[in-house]
């Protein structure tokens, strides 16, 4: 009985039964291109994520969190940027990318990658953060709490200002990147997100504490309120329907630390916010904030674009041979 011929591709050569070398092409092309083809197929699957169906009803907040988590199995990819004016230094723009995944209906996990460009200085990578949000109560209540835990490995040069905490003041951000980016911090942050939806309005309060290892605990707050421009959806499909726009405002700032708690040497901001949720799954956000005291940056303008990919978890599962 004739043994089955086995083709393989090893170190650039085509082998038959691990011995004979055939010229490329012919029956060996399957062995030669098998692995790259599979890799290409996987790549195409990843690219295919971009045509996954999408859904979006994102809040316009940049700093404040409400109690609504990511839908389970969905991935939201977000690009944000924070432009700030700087007295005694150079203005800056700090972009960051977020990958937000709904692990379950009660747990959302998120990774941030931060960077910043200080004009007339440099562009630097400033670290990453990993946050998790847990919803302990399974139904809507008068007030809905969410527990937030974040670990960040970021440098002193980070200017995303996702949180303004403790005694953060404008002058802290005037340090040149070459100096500030040498100091890496391990930071732990705990938030209690309290949020309520009422007659179309969302009201959210986020008191939180942050600890840069080796430093005292710092305190901070974020408050937010928002509402869609109209509460009823129109029956027609449209991009510019008022129901697609959500407007609101958020206020945030530091509350000192365990050594000196309160408002002295703290900065505070008030920012109108707006989100445009497109039926295609894209969301655009804009916020034009301003400082409320002399320690604050005069202007912080934030913008962002995000897209939600429904069924991302299942797609990734199939990619790695998961059950269909």
């Amino acid at each position, binding site marked *: 009985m004739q043994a089955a011929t086995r083709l393989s591709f090893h170190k650039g050569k085509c082998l038959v039964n691990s011995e004979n070398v055939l010229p490329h092409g012919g029956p060996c092309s399957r062995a030669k291109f098998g692995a790259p083809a599979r890799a290409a197929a996987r790549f195409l699957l990843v690219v295919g994520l971009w045509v996954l169906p999408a859904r979006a*009803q994102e809040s316009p907040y940049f700093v404040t969190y409400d109690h609504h988590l990511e839908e*389970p199995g969905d991935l939201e990819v977000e690009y944000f940027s924070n432009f700030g004016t700087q007295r005694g230094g150079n203005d800056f723009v700090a972009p960051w990318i977020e990958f937000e995944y709904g692990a379950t*209906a*009660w747990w959302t996990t998120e990774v941030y990658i931060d960077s910043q460009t200080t004009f007339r200085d440099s562009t630097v*990578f400033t670290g990453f953060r990993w946050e998790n949000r847990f919803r302990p109560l*399974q139904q809507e209540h008068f007030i809905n709490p969410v527990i937030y835990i974040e670990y960040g490995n970021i440098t002193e040069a980070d200017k995303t200002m996702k949180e303004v905490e403790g005694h953060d003041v404008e002058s802290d951000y005037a340090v040149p990147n070459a100096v500030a980016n040498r100091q890496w911090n391990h930071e732990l942050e705990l938030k209690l997100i309290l949020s309520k939806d009422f007659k*179309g309005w969302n009201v959210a309060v986020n008191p939180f504490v942050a600890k840069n290892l080796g430093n005292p605990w710092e305190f901070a707050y974020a408050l937010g309120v928002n509402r869609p421009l109209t*509460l009823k959806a129109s029956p027609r499909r449209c991009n510019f329907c008022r129901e697609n726009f959500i407007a609101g405002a958020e206020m945030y700032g530091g509350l000192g630390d365990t050594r000196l708690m309160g408002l002295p040497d703290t900065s505070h901001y008030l920012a109108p916010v707006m989100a445009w949720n497109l039926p295609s799954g894209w969301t655009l956000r804009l916020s034009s904030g301003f400082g409320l005291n002399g320690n604050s940056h005069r202007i912080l303008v934030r913008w962002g674009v995000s897209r939600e990919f429904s069924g991302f978890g299942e797609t990734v599962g199939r990619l790695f041979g998961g*059950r269909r």
Partner: protein
Amino acid sequence: MKIDSVLPQPRVKVTLVMASLLFLAVLLAFVHAEDFGVSKIHRLHYAALAKVPVKARARRNPLEGDPDAAAAGRKLFERHCAECHGHDAEGGKRGPSLHVADVQKAAPGALFFVLSNGVVRRGMPDWSKLPEQQRWQIVSFLESLHD
């Protein structure tokens, strides 16, 4: 503008890769965890309708008689719900069919309650992020399915 260094330092790279792998592991764990027992989970979804409090069940749809409500509800359903429940609410991998008697015979108030609160432990998120009127529009669409 001078660009000094966009790329992270080696130590940061390692940390970043480890964080990414951890994130991926968590993600995959839940992908697999959510894959099993689909039909059982679907039955538990229907069971949630039976557990709706009496007061919530008694609520009437304020958009009853609104000729646009079902059409607007369909649009919202396609945008927010169809990914799990199927384009025509026939059911999908993650969400049960909404054509079954459990749903079609359910009181509007019960549908509204489940839509607003979700069945969080079973994977259905709450949709209270949508304004109340839009949730009632979705209920109107669900009611129109048996017409």
